Every structure is written in C-alpha cells, then in structure tokens.
C-alpha cells in the first residue's frame, strides 16, 4: 500500500510538511504575521514601480519583512543542503521554457487570486477560509489536468 502510494518513502514528506507548518506557526506566534509566500512577488515590485496597485499599504508596509522571510527560505534550504543534502547540488530536467512560461502563469494567477499553495493552501485553510478552499480545489483541478495533458503530449 505505502509503496504504491509513496514509491520514494513517506517520512521525509510528513516531517518536511510539519517543519513548513512550524515555520508558519512560529511566524504567527512571535509576530502575528500570516506567512504565505506569493505576496513577496508583489510587495518587492513596490520598491521599483510607482504603479498604484503596488503602492498600496499592504505591500509597502510588509515589503521589508517579506524579503527577510524569503531570505530565510533560501537559508533554510541551504542548511538542509549542507546537512542532509549530501553536498550534491539539485538540478531539474524540466525544460527552461516550461519553467519560465509556467512561472509566468504561476505569478500572474497567484497574485490575481491573492494566494498560492502556501497562502491559500496552508494559511487560508489554516484559518478555515471558505474562499481559500474554493481556490485550492480550483488550482488542484487545473494543475492535475495540465500535468496529465503535458504527460500525454510528451508520450509518457
């Protein structure tokens, strides 16, 4: 059962998830902040763009801590790399165009929706928000459909 559901094992998934939740929980208990990740991509634009959308208080007010939070993400992953990661740098075989075009849609969509896998999926569901549940079900559905379509198209 577990070997078909989790061919690569399951302990690292669950423990990683618990750590992700601990990060979001620690941020909340210490500072009261809600730590979804996609907002940093809008708030950072507020440093360089005069566009009225980016100059809203919710972006200019939080842009400093969100960048520090993002720096922590990189630092934490680097700590894993140096401790458990075996020193081999990770790489991906997903083509650059797929990463770039996919990223463009991810950035546009997450900001239009005001949340991503962490914003709606962890923080939104974590505060029992019905709109976040609707968002999660929607992006899960289109993500499954797209990934299956790409797989079929590539002849996997």
């Amino acid at each position, binding site marked *: 059962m577990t070997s078909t*559901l*989790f061919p690569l094992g*399951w302990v690292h*998934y669950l*423990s*990683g*998830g*618990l*750590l*992700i939740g601990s*990060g*979001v*929980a620690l941020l*909340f*208990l*210490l*500072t*009261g*902040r809600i*730590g979804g990740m996609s907002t940093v*991509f809008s708030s950072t*634009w507020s440093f360089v*763009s005069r*566009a009225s*959308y980016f100059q809203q208080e919710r972006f200019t*007010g939080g842009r*400093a*801590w969100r960048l520090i939070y993002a720096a*922590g*993400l*990189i*630092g*934490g*992953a680097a*700590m894993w*790399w140096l401790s458990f990661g075996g020193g081999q740098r990770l790489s991906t075989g997903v083509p650059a165009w797929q*990463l*770039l*075009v*996919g*990223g*463009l*849609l*991810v*950035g*546009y*969509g*997450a*900001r*239009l*929706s*005001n*949340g991503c896998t962490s914003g709606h999926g962890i*923080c939104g569901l*974590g505060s029992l928000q*019905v*709109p976040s549940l609707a968002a999660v079900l929607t992006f899960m559905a*289109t993500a499954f459909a*797209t990934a299956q*379509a790409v797989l079929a198209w590539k002849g996997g």
Partner: protein
Amino acid sequence: MEGGLNVRASQVLAVLASGMLFGFGLALSTMVSPEVVLSFLQWRDAGLMLVMGGALVVTLLAYRFGPLVLKRPLLGGEFGHHVAVMDRDTLVGAAIFGVGWGLCGVCPGPAIAGLGAGQVELLWALAGIFAGAGLQGWQASR
C-alpha cells in the same frame, strides 16, 4: 517593522528563523524538485498530500489556539488574519495558477527555497513568477 528598514533585531531574527524552518521543510520534503511535484500531479506519488497535510495541521493549531492562549504575539503587535474573498479574481487566478503549476511543477515557495539547495534552474521559474506578478499589478493599476 512596517514601512521601513529601521526594524527591531528580535523581529528580524523571528522572521528569518520562521523562513528558515519553512525553507528547510521545503527542501527536506523535496518540494524544491519540480519532478517530485509533477509526479504528484501525474498521480504517481501521493507525497505532496502529506506535506500539505502536515503543514496544515500545525498551522491550524497555531492559528486556532495561539490567540486563545496569548493576548498578543510574543514579540508584540497584533495577531493578523488571512482574509480571502470569494470573487471572480480568486477563482480565475487560482485556475491560472494551477495551469502554470501543472506545467512547471514550481510554486512560489519552492522557487525561492530551491536556490538555497543549488537549484539554479529555478531562476527561470523565479523570473517568470516575478514578471507574472508585475503584469498582474500593472493591469490592476490601469
């Protein structure tokens, strides 16, 4: 801390430590590898369910019981709320996000954290996400 760089050191350390836990978790759970995320979306490996589930349970407990046990956050300020609205943008945006996620296997957190594990290819995704967020904000400003 809001509004400027003149911030209290304890706040900076708290935010940094929280981000590091998050990033360590993303790397440990291999969510920084697009292949692993795609194998979930292709129904080959259910691991992402455990990652989301584990993260959700801890967050749920903190959001639910933190404000009951503590009057205010330990370092001061107020407890914030995640406010999501049920409107067209939330659902259309989520649908577009899902198409992009299914195409590249990268979402905002792993795009950032992956760099820390030497996953430099994710700079493509990071550039795309940043451009997409820019486009959305520019459109919303018009």
